[in-house]
């Protein structure tokens, strides 16, 4: 009998009709009670590995698998998914898709009922998991009314009801806001440390996860690293993984063995900052200072009340000038998406008004307003329906009244590095390419204002940097950008000139990103956590005289004080 929780031996896997493997010669042994983070770039085989561990590959997917895979002592390649029911709990990237039932406690009971557990046992397990996860108040709720974070906890509760020894989560942090991330990870850590559950989290957002994991595996079709998280992160800066800013900082200032927890970095940073003259920093600001140009958007006392009676927006006032780059920041459910849907008239105000270059959105159609405001939705798959990327872009041109100008369509595809994929189906593209195509299909008609809804949700670090360079080039062309996000680390790199902080349908504050991202009290009110570097600088007691937002800025100050004004 195999004694490891997981034992993969030289696993190579080819999806059906593919000539290159999704995983190549992967060997991995996990002991019971470990908390493992499996990271790697998009397309590196992380989800494929999950599906093999869960017995779904090759049984449901087909393809060719070479090697052996044991989970809780069972050969899952031979026995398939049935063999691990009850032994392994799983939570997928979009937990909403794995919820079968309409009432929370019915969902938690579902698996146990399938495996013929007695009613008394099931009720006992329901009580246990809802109390353990702090969701007792949700047990009678309809699953379709829950928030993203709540659905995830219900999916987790449903997986835990079996009392599995192994828990596998595939990109569980992808759609959570910063507070949701911290809450979920502390639950997982408790399951690992208190209940001895083996936790395997497949994820590329490592800033928070690295604090809890006992081991890090970096996967890019092959295992590139397997060991202690701190050491792994030091070596993975070039691998497209979202490395915690504090690790980046220590690498930049050439200090070995970076700590993963900020508390452990404070003394070192205080010592490094001690010798720096605290008078007059300019914070290395390459940030655009905004524009005093024409008013692009004006939101005046905007209220939006949905048909259910929910007040999604409550008296929002906001001005966006031509050339601005504005970030609307807030937790899930704060009203960010509802707000931007007013910018091209998809939603009309219940009270108040929105002006787009002086046009009242109540008096104009979406088609008219969309000529000025291009809106890129969060899920690129909501855009695509044509046979090829080129046709997809041409569709927007035709709909916007510019005719089938293929030259213009090709030109935008070229500028977003999609020229070679012009004749490919949008569905055959990678996640990053799909996101670029969705942006291309909006930019092609050159709207003056580009609005992006959570553009970094579910994408890895290198794709975020790719997105950042697209946004920078738009700014250089004089475009106005509005972006909603709860990705505070991305925000710390984006050259925004104004942050609008939202909570519960209201604007809590708007202004300079440094002022807002250094105001922990304000961020907490909006259920948002500060980026790591502002948090570190504040903990080191230096925030009164410097406000760097990211690792590169703080490293510049420490390394050469290049950004410090003389005397």
């Amino acid at each position, binding site marked *: 009998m195999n004694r490891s929780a997981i034992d993969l031996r030289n696993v190579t896997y080819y999806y059906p009709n593919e000539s290159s493997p999704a995983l190549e010669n992967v060997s991995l042994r996990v002991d019971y009670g470990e908390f493992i983070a499996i990271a790697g770039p998009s397309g590196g085989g992380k989800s494929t590995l999950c*599906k093999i561990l*869960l017995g*779904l590959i090759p049984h*449901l997917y087909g393809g060719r698998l070479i090697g052996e895979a044991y989970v809780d002592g069972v050969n899952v390649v031979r026995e398939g*998914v*049935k063999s*691990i*029911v*009850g032994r392994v709990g*799983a939570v997928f990237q979009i937990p909403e*898709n794995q*919820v*079968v*039932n*309409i*009432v929370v406690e*019915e969902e938690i*009971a*579902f*698996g*146990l*009922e*399938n*495996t*013929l*557990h*007695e*009613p008394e046992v*099931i*009720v006992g397990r329901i009580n246990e998991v809802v109390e353990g996860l702090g969701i007792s108040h949700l047990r*009678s*709720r*309809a*699953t*379709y009314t829950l928030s993203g974070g709540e659905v995830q906890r219900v999916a987790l509760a*449903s997986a835990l009801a079996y009392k599995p020894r192994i828990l596998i989560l595939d990109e569980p942090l992808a759609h959570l806001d910063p507070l949701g991330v911290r809450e979920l990870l502390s639950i997982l850590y408790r399951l690992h440390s208190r209940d001895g559950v083996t936790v395997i989290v497949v994820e590329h957002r490592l800033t928070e996860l690295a604090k809890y994991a006992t081991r890090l595996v970096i996967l890019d079709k092959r295992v590139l690293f397997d060991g202690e998280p701190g050491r792994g992160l030091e070596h993975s800066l070039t691998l497209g993984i979202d490395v915690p800013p504090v690790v980046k900082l220590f690498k930049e200032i050439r200090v070995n063995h970076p700590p993963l927890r900020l508390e452990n970095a404070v003394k070192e940073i205080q010592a490094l900052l001690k010798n720096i003259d605290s008078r007059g920093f300019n914070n290395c600001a390459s940030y655009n200072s905004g524009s005093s140009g024409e008013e692009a958007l004006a939101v005046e006392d905007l209220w*939006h*009340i949905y*048909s259910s*009676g929910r007040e999604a927006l409550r008296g929002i006032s906001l001005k966006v000038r031509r050339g601005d780059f504005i970030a609307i920041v807030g937790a899930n459910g704060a009203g960010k998406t509802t707000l931007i*849907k007013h910018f091209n008239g*998809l939603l009309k105000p*219940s009270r108040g008004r929105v002006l787009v270059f002086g046009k009242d959105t109540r008096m104009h159609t*979406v*088609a008219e307003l*969309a000529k000025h405001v291009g*809106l890129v*939705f969060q899920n690129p*798959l*909501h*855009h695509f*329906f044509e046979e090829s990327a080129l046709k997809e872009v041409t*569709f*927007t041109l*035709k*709909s*916007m009244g510019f005719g089938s100008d293929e030259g213009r369509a090709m030109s935008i595809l070229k500028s977003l590095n999609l020229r070679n994929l012009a004749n490919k189906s949008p*569905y055959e593209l990678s996640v990053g390419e799909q996101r670029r195509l969705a942006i291309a*299909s909006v930019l092609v*008609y050159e709207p003056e204002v580009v609005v992006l809804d959570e553009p970094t949700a579910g994408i890895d670090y290198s794709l975020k940097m790719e997105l950042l360079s697209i946004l920078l080039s738009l700014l250089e062309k004089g475009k106005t950008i509005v972006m909603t996000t709860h990705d505070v680390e991305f925000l710390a790199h984006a050259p925004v000139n104004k942050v609008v902080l939202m909570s519960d349908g209201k604007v809590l504050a708007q202004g300079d990103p440094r002022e807002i991202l250094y105001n922990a009290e304000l961020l907490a009110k909006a259920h948002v956590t500060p980026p790591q570097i502002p948090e570190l600088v504040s903990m080191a007691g230096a925030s009164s005289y410097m406000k760097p937002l990211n690792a590169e800025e703080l490293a510049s100050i420490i390394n050469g004080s290049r950004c410090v004004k003389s005397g």
Partner: protein
Amino acid sequence: MAKRSIFEGLSYALIYEELKGFYHNIDPRAKLLYAAATIAALIVNDLQKLLVILALNLALTLLYLRILNRLAALLKGLSIFIAMIVIFNTLISLLLAGEHLDIYSLLETQAKAILRVVIAATALTVFLSTTTPWEIVQGLSKIGIKYTYLYTFIIALRFIPIVFSEMRSIYDAQRSRGLELEKGGVLSRVKKLAPIVIPTIVCSMLRARDLVEAMELKGFGYSNKRSFYKPLKFRRIDAGFALTTVMAYAFIALTPIP
């Protein structure tokens, strides 16, 4: 307040609501009996009797007033279907009767058709908005129907609000790219549906794949039987409700009109 779209209205009307009212406490088998008896009563072909059945159904909604809102949303959603019935009936009557068309008889036929839709919609709203799909599965399993078949229906119900909400989001994404469904003739409008229908199908298929995997991992279909954590109990009040409604329908159907 923003208005509900037709799709949102349909979704709102047919999905279980997490409140506690009279019908939430009634055994699903009793409610199913009531719904089945209501549908059976629609064979009645007398306008007055249909009006009495409608009145009885509306009286039953007084036991849980929120159903009236949902019924209104469902009828709004069904308005196109009702309009099609009216047009079809008119065309058939014109074709068959020609010059001898009796306008009163046509109006009566139309009224009866509309009444049948409204009555069925009332019973359906009472049943679906106050019964969880899990209760339906348990109720029907007890009369020998295999639960694996029933879950097809449950999943359809569970995903109604999600698919409609996704469709709404896709529609918004395509409108943002200049799609205007309101313009053009019928054929052109139908063609314009492709940017909405195709992404909806693709997203639904991806969702279905995730769901199948999740159900496999939770042991769905591993046994022909399943346990239920909260066994249903058919109480006096359930029997009373079912018996009263069935007998009322029988009385209405069998009583001769003076």
